[in-house]
């Protein structure tokens, strides 16, 4: 049983990271206001939300299985309070920080109608901290963190999110950027 939990805990962490990478890239795409090939904007928004939901489910699985399993020696407190863990507390703590940030982002997203767009967006910015922290946690804490496969995956993820970010902060990022700039001149 313990072996199954341990394996599930590791795999679900990797799957969750892949899904979060997709969520971040899709979120940036959504923000640009552009459709992607033949996928309309409203579908992209839905895909972004569904990726986020799936990623969160796998994250819950990752944390849940590792709390139950006896190798990881994870306590319930470690899930919420960072840097107290017994195994590589720093790297495990990063995972806890990322987890807390995910919880904050998900809760404010679900409540965005009540709390308003400002609070929603302010918290949503934390995603840009969450993602690299989660990646660092995977590299530093993961049993497979330094395997060839995972390093390749990490490099590909970094390139995709990095490219999306460069685009995000470029002047032509918005679909309507050109018109808007011309009008201002």
């Amino acid at each position, binding site marked *: 049983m313990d072996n199954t939990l341990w394996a599930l805990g590791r795999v679900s962490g990797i799957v969750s990271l892949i899904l979060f990478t997709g969520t971040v890239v899709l979120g940036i795409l*959504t*923000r640009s*206001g552009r459709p992607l090939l033949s996928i*309309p*904007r409203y579908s992209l*928004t*839905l895909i972004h939300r569904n990726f986020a939901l799936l990623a969160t489910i796998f994250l819950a699985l990752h944390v849940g299985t590792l709390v139950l399993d006896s190798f990881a020696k994870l306590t319930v407190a470690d899930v919420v309070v960072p840097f107290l863990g017994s195994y590589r507390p720093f790297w495990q703590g990063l995972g806890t920080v990322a987890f807390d940030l995910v919880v904050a982002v998900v809760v404010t997203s679900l409540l965005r109608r009540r709390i308003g*767009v400002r609070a929603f967006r302010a918290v949503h910015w934390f995603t840009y901290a969450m993602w690299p922290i989660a990646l660092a946690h995977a590299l530093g804490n993961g049993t497979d963190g330094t395997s060839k496969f995972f390093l390749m995956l990490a490099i590909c993820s970094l390139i995709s999110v990095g490219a999306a970010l460069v685009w995000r902060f470029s002047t032509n990022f918005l679909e309507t950027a050109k*018109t*808007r700039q011309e009008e201002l001149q």
Partner: protein
Amino acid sequence: MREVLHIDWTRCDGRGLCTELLPTLLGRDDWGYPLAMQAAGGDPSNVVIDFQHSEAAADAVKLCPKMALALAYEADQADETW
């Protein structure tokens, strides 16, 4: 009673999701902002939603990234005075 979709332009950022979902009711200006093709009561920020478009309009309200859309019911009379 009729269903009316209200666009709050102070919130809208012209991301165009609503214009995709309601292509026959909403046009888009150069900046990307939605405009009612047939304005309710002469106001292009209010769109009359008929039965067929009710679901798409509800989707638009849910998906608008800026929460700039709202659906409301109002009395038909508003039109008759015009």
